[in-house]
């Protein structure tokens, strides 16, 4: 089993790095995942996206589409790609501790 070391605690993740147990998520876990994804520091803008993804996941059981993310998170698409380079929906989902998005949009 793959695990993520967060301040000495082992957190189980799948082979792509998504949390296996969403209940393991906290801000420190998010920071470690972000670093692994090449994001050195999570700014307020990152957190706005992360919190939005968690809110949608709580309501719908799945992360938002990139379209919804761009329209409703308060962070436009151009900025999303800057904040989470190379695939914002998946990267932000991973950092937010929710399941990998499976939609095509």
């Amino acid at each position: 089993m793959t695990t993520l070391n967060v301040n000495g605690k082992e957190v189980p993740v799948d082979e792509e790095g998504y949390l296996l147990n969403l209940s393991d998520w906290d801000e420190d876990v998010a920071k470690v995942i972000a670093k692994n994804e090449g994001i050195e520091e999570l700014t307020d803008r990152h957190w706005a996206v992360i919190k939005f993804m968690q809110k949608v996941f709580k309501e719908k059981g799945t992360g938002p589409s990139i379209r919804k993310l761009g329209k409703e998170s308060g962070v436009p698409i151009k900025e999303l790609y800057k904040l989470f380079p190379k695939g914002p929906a998946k990267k932000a989902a991973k950092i937010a501790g929710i399941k990998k998005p499976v939609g095509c949009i």
Partner: protein
Amino acid sequence: MTENNGYEPIQKVSIIISRGSLDGVYPGLIMANGALMEGIDAMLFFTFFGLDAIRKKTMNNLKVATVANPAMHIPTWIGAIPGMSAFATSKMKREIEKLDIPPVGEFLEMIHDAGGIILACKATVEMFHLSKSDFCDQVDDIVSVGQMYEASAGAEIIFT
């Protein structure tokens, strides 16, 4: 089933959209946006009737063909009844919206904002007597086939 089995992941796609029907345009847009979401660079090249997808005048009024389209599973003579194409189009547009797939104009904006490059084919732009001002703001340039290949360096070219 979807692992890369030791192959190098795709880095860049160059998608050519040559048709102007709703069903001719959407697959290319979905693949381009999908590529960008995977961290794959994407370029779209619109040619022939595909230009309708980036023309301000036509881009949000693309239709589904109900004639000469066997996959519609309706007889040709029914497909030819006035209003059939409009009916099929509005039905498909509703289904598209249900899947949270945006209208063409908004989709192009999304792709462009995500870093996708949008190009129009020079030969067909000239053939249809169009100019840059006929196209939506997201069109980066009008280029020749040669320039399209240059811009496609390192890309997988997908023709739709």
